[in-house]
């Protein structure tokens, strides 16, 4: 008997108020004797107040959400009942039925939320409370017992969350355009009712807080001797603009300036990208298809064996039969071009990042940003500086697919064991020998994984780049999207997937063989 009392003592210490109830409940939980339908009625009734009192914040948010759903539905009932009355007065019968249907729907939802939701809370209460106890056993600072100050905190949260949420549900919110008109009206000194202003500033888009003078716009007309002069353009609209418009117009100005005065730089890049791509396209597109197909099969067979060669063969037959050969090859040409650039730039960069802590702190965040930005966004600066066509497509593809090359090269270099490098130094290696004879060979597997990633990412971006005129299979997909030719799009999509799988299989297998 003495032992029984001892085992439940911590339960009592933890729950403080109503210790006997929790002692027996927790004991049943530990013995797997708790009924599947066990409910804590106090929690069901007290809902988030009970959860706050006990310090169980997970249950607090669950029960607050449940109650808010219930009350929101009641507010919606009010909203649509009022609207229905208005519609009856206006004689718009079709609206009356619609609003009455919605009123009924939300009535059911409110009842369900209050009944089922509260039951859920009551069911969860003791189970979550036991979890809280388990954490408290390890960390005595974890909330335990009951405390009124937690209830006050909870009420503060509710006061912040509930009123506006419920108000929003009971009203038809004004749209952004209405609010923009309202802002203009206020700027022009017109009177606007308090309710409209309140609605626009709380339950619509976040109100515009910063109004700025429109940035100065410049023009760069060409002089007779070929130079450019800088002229301030006359402003037509005198209204202040919001931060978004101000910033975007400033960026536009900067890009225009760069293009006007440093156009030779971007034109030069475009030119050399085109030269490189032409050479590669000559290989893939210009060479007769039987030769290219034969080469592909041979490469696949010698690097990756008969099974993958068979897969490559089948894929090539698909591409050929459905008439994707030339477009497919031009996509591959873009992938090859951007992969070459990525390796040429990314490998030295990766070595540098792998060896220098400072380079790593500078380059890593840039790579993070490059990888987080969605692929579509890369198209914008590419078009801005390099116009449309294949060269900007390659540019966007290179930027998109560079990070894994740098990262995996750096990782490979860093993973070379310190002791191996030390041994090489002990035998008189100079820095160049250390790099070429020890570090690069040991990092090779990682570097090749990087190349594989670059190829895959280039392919996906080359398809997206069709949006800015990079052509290839992506263009067929874009066309199909615009003209709702679903069938054509799907066939082209399969061709893209097959090309991706072919390259991936061969490169991966080739890597493994080398190891």
């Amino acid at each position: 008997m003495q032992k029984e009392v001892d085992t439940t003592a911590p339960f009592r210490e933890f729950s403080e108020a109503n210790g006997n109830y929790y002692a027996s409940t927790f004991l049943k939980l530990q013995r797997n004797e708790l009924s599947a339908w066990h409910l804590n009625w106090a929690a069901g009734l007290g809902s988030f107040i009970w959860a706050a009192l006990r310090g169980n914040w997970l249950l607090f948010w669950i029960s607050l959400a449940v109650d808010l759903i219930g009350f929101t539905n009641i507010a919606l009932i009010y909203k649509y009942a009022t609207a229905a009355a208005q519609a009856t007065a206006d004689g718009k019968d079709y609206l009356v039925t619609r609003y009455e249907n919605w009123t009924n729907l939300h009535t059911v939802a409110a009842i369900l939320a209050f009944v089922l939701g509260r039951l859920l809370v009551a069911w969860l209460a003791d189970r979550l409370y036991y979890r809280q106890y388990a954490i408290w056993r390890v960390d005595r600072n974890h909330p335990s017992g009951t405390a009124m100050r937690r209830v006050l905190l909870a009420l503060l949260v509710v006061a912040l969350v509930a009123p506006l949420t419920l108000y929003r549900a009971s009203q038809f919110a004004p749209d952004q355009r209405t609010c923009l008109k309202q802002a203009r009206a206020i700027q022009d000194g017109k009177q606007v009712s308090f309710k409209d202003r309140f609605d626009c500033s709380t339950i619509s888009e976040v109100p515009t807080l910063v109004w700025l003078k429109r940035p100065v716009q410049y023009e760069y007309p060409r002089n007779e001797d070929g130079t450019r002069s800088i002229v301030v353009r006359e402003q037509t609209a005198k209204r202040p603009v919001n931060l978004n418009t101000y910033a975007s117009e400033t960026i536009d100005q900067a890009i225009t300036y760069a293009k006007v005065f440093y156009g030779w730089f971007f034109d030069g890049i475009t030119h050399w990208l085109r030269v490189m791509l032409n050479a590669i396209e000559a290989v893939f597109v210009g060479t007769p298809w039987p030769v290219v197909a034969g080469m592909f099969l041979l490469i696949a067979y010698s690097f990756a064996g008969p099974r993958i060669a068979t897969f490559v063969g089948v894929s090539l037959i698909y591409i050929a039969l459905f008439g994707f050969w030339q477009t497919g090859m031009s996509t591959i040409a873009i992938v090859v071009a951007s992969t070459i650039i990525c390796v040429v730039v990314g490998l030295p960069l990766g070595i540098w990042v792998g060896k220098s802590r400072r380079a790593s702190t500078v380059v890593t965040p840039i790579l993070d940003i490059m990888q987080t930005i969605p692929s579509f966004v890369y198209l914008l600066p590419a078009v801005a500086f390099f116009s449309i066509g294949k060269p900007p497509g390659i540019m966007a593809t290179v930027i998109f697919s560079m990070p894994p090359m740098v990262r995996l090269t750096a990782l490979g270099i860093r993973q070379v064991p310190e002791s191996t490098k030390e041994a090489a130094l002990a035998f008189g290696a100079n820095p160049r020998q250390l790099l070429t004879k020890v570090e690069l060979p040991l990092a090779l597997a990682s570097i090749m994984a990087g190349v594989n990633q670059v190829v895959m990412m280039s392919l996906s971006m080359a398809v997206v780049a069709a949006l800015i005129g990079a052509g290839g299979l992506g263009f067929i997909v874009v066309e199909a999207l615009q003209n709702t030719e679903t069938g054509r799009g799907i066939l082209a999509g399969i061709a893209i997937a097959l090309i991706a799988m072919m390259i991936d299989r061969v490169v991966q297998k080739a890597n493994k063989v080398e190891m």
Partner: protein
Amino acid sequence: MSAADSQNVVEVRGVWKIFGTRAEEAHAAIDKQSMSKAEVLDQFGAVIGVRDVSFSVDQAEIFCIMGLSGSGKSTLVRHVNRLIEPTRGQIYIQGADVGGLSSEELRALRADKIGMVFQNMALLPHRSVRDNVAFALELRNVDAYTRMQAADRVIETVHLEGYGDRMPSELSGGMQQRVGLARALAADPDILLMDEPFSALDPLIRRELQDEFLELSRSMRKTTLFITHDLDEAIRMGSRIAIMKDGEIVQIGTPEDIVTKPADDYVADFVKGISRLKLVFAHTVMKPLEQYEQTSGAIPSVDACPTADPEADLDTLVNLAVDHDNPILIMDDGRAVGVVTKDALLRGMQGET
């Protein structure tokens, strides 16, 4: 006399190594008053790796540096080929100050004069055994034919014939360390630095490699710095032993010195469990003849007694004592100089002389 005239192949003079950005401040403070390792760490956030170490190693000597992990022995040995720069002190190799070498001269020294063997082998996994062994020569731009010949020769020396074309991963730990040894020997260096070469191996293989290395060392006469944390190994291998603790050398001496005359309690603690049979010699345990005759009367008769050399170890003396009842006479140049009784022998094995 210049350092070059002496036969010291490696000479370490007053070497200090303090790690940390505030090493110089720590040095200045230590110059004023002596500070313990913990105090320096506490005040300057700097770690004393090596503390005022001096020693010299003679031609063809195996000099063991023995200490527990963290005692600075691996740090110390890396100063010899300047993988680590000392913060104070000089190291001379065949009379040349290593600290004064340009980076090109230093690389030449490392490649031509010093071979190093590592505890974790540190072989290049992407190269065959032969290419690993030839690595030092390759770094010196020796042509492929010559270095392959040289590599094959050393591979034979370490008894790895026929394994030249295998990859290191195909070899057992013991064999990998043979490759490590072969790599160190390939450029025929004068000096070998062995950083716990056999510690990662299992006891039988370790023993085998120790014996082989001793044999090699006798025939090749390489000056060797041998790092170990195992006193048994140090005693087996070393002609002299330096015992390190907290970056300092506590005692330098022959194995017998260390075992019979430990400098302090720390060393005494170490040598407690060491078998003295092969380390203590007759001259240490014998009683001079005159002294013996004063206390115990004349010796029975020279012919009736077993005789031994002053350099005979206890093991030999035990064998003699088992076969005879009379005390053992120690003869030097055909003249009896001392007597070892059974009591003295037993006490000698215990460590009391």
